[in-house]
C-alpha cells in the first residue's frame, strides 16, 4: 500500500497548470516548425512566423501562450494499492486548479451554470476522469482545453453500413466546417466505437498522444493518413486564410461496439494542444 497526501496533489496540479499553459511540448514545437517549413502560402507563412514569435515570448515570460487558458480536464490513473490521505482526492484536484489559475494569473473561463453563465471566478470545477489500474501507480494528465476548438467538436451515431468510408467522410466534414474557426492547423482526436459517451472520451484521449503517433492497427493508421492528406488538400490553411497546413495531426482510437452501432466522436483542438503528465 502506497500513501499519498492531498496537499501534495494540490501543489503539483497548481504547478502543472501554470507550466503547461506557457510551454508547449517539444514534439508539438517540432511539428509546428516542420509545418511552417512546408507552407507555401504567404499569409500562411506569416501566420506561422507569428505563432513562433508568440511561443518564444510565452516561454521567455513564462506566461500563457493563449489567453484562453481553457477548462481543465484531468485524467487520473490510480493504482488499486494507493491510499489518498488528507481529504477528498477530487477536491484536492479542484484546489490545485484554483490555486494555479489564481496564483498564475491565468484566465478564469468557467461559468457555474451553462444557462445562467456566472463565472466561478477560479476556473473550477475541472472535468475529471478516473481510471483504476492494478498496483501503486498514481498519475494525473492535465489538459487546458480551449473552447474555440472544443466548440467545433462533433459526435454522430453512424450506421454500421456506413463503414470506413462513412467515418472518413464525417471526420473530413467536421474538419472542413470546423478548422477555419478552430485556430488551424488543428489536431483532431477521433473516437470510433464503444457507446455514445465512450466515443467522446476516446476522442479526447486521442489528443494526448504524441505528435505523429500512428494507430497500432494498420487499417486505422491508413485511415489517419488518408484523413490528414485529404484535410490538407482542402486549402483551408493556417487560421483558415489559405494554405497547405489545415491539420497538424489526426489520431483515431477505437473500442468494441454494439452490433447495431458505429459511434464516431471528433474532438477538435487548436495548435495550442496543452497537456502534461504529473507522475507521483
Amino acid at each position, binding site marked *: 500500500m502506497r500513501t499519498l497526501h492531498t496537499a501534495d496533489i494540490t501543489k503539483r496540479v497548481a504547478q502543472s497548470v501554470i507550466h503547461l499553459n506557457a510551454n508547449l511540448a517539444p514534439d508539438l514545437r517540432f511539428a509546428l516548425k516542420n509545418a511552417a517549413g512546408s507552407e*507555401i*502560402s504567404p*499569409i500562411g507563412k*506569416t*501566420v506561422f512566423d*507569428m*505563432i513562433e*514569435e*508568440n511561443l518564444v*515570448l*510565452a516561454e521567455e*515570460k513564462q*506566461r*500563457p*501562450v*493563449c*489567453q*484562453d*487558458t481553457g477548462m481543465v480536464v484531468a485524467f487520473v490513473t490510480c493504482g488499486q494499492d494507493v491510499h489518498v490521505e488528507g481529504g477528498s482526492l477530487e477536491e484536492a484536484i479542484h484546489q490545485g486548479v484554483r490555486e494555479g489559475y489564481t496564483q498564475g*494569473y*491565468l*484566465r*478564469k*473561463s468557467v461559468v457555474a451554470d451553462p444557462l445562467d*453563465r456566472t*463565472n466561478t*471566478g477560479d476556473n473550477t470545477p475541472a472535468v475529471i476522469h478516473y481510471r483504476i489500474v492494478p498496483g501503486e501507480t498514481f498519475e494525473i494528465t492535465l489538459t487546458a482545453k*480551449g473552447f*474555440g476548438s472544443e*466548440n467545433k467538436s462533433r459526435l454522430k451515431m453512424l450506421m454500421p453500413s456506413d463503414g470506413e468510408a462513412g467515418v472518413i467522410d464525417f471526420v473530413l466534414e467536421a474538419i472542413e466546417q470546423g478548422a*477555419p*474557426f478552430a*485556430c488551424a492547423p488543428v489536431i483532431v482526436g477521433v473516437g470510433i466505437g464503444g457507446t455514445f459517451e465512450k466515443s467522446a472520451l476516446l476522442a479526447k484521449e486521442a489528443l494526448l498522444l504524441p505528435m505523429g503517433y500512428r494507430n497500432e492497427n494498420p487499417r486505422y493508421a491508413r485511415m489517419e493518413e488518408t484523413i490528414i*492528406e*485529404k484535410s490538407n*488538400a*482542402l*486549402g*483551408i*490553411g493556417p*487560421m*483558415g*486564410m*489559405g*494554405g*497547405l497546413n489545415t491539420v497538424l495531426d489526426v489520431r483515431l482510437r477505437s473500442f468494441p461496439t454494439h452490433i447495431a452501432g458505429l459511434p464516431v466522436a471528433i474532438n477538435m483542438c*487548436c*495548435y*495550442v494542444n496543452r497537456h502534461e503528465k504529473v507522475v507521483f
Partner: protein
Amino acid sequence: MRRIAISELKTVVRTLKTGERVLLTGDLYVARDAAHKRMTEALASGENLPFDIKDQIIFYMGPCPAAPGEVIGPAGPTTSHRMDAYSPGLFKRGLLGAIGKGNVSQRVIDAIVARGGVYFVCVGGTGCLSADRIKSAEVIAYPDLGAEAIRHIRVEDFPVIVAVDAFGNNVFDEQRKIYQHSEE
C-alpha cells in the same frame, strides 16, 4: 507593411485590401460574448451604449489577468462568428471595424459593406504577442463580467491582417481557392 493610426482609419479604410498586413496604433475597445449580449440588450431597451462606437474598432478578446508589472495579461483574439448575431447592429450604428479570428457570416459582411468598414484578424493563440503591443488597458464597463468586461486599450504597432474589406472581399474564401487541390 502598412502602419495605420486608428484615428485615421476612417479616411483610408477603402484603400485596404484583403490579405494586407497592417500595424495599428491608437485606441480601441475590447468586448466579447457577454458584453455584446448586454450592449445589444441596452440598445433594444433604448439605452445608450457604455461608449460611443462611432468610427471605433472593437477587438473580440478576453485577456488573462495582468501579472505584477504587466499592462494586461495574454490578450489574443477570440472567434468572431460568435459575435455574428450582434455585430451587424453595431456596424449599423457607426462601428468602423472589428478585430477577431476566423470567418464571419454573410450578414456581417453585408453590414461591413453598407458601413464602409473593415474586419481584421490577428493570429489566434498569440496571446503574449498581442499583449506585448498593448500599452494601456482600462475596464470601462461591465466590470462584473471579469475577463469579458469592456476595456479601452491603447495599442502600438498591433499586427493584423485585413480579412474582409470595405467592398466585401473575404480573405478566407479567396485564399482557400488558391490552395485547394485534389490529392491523388
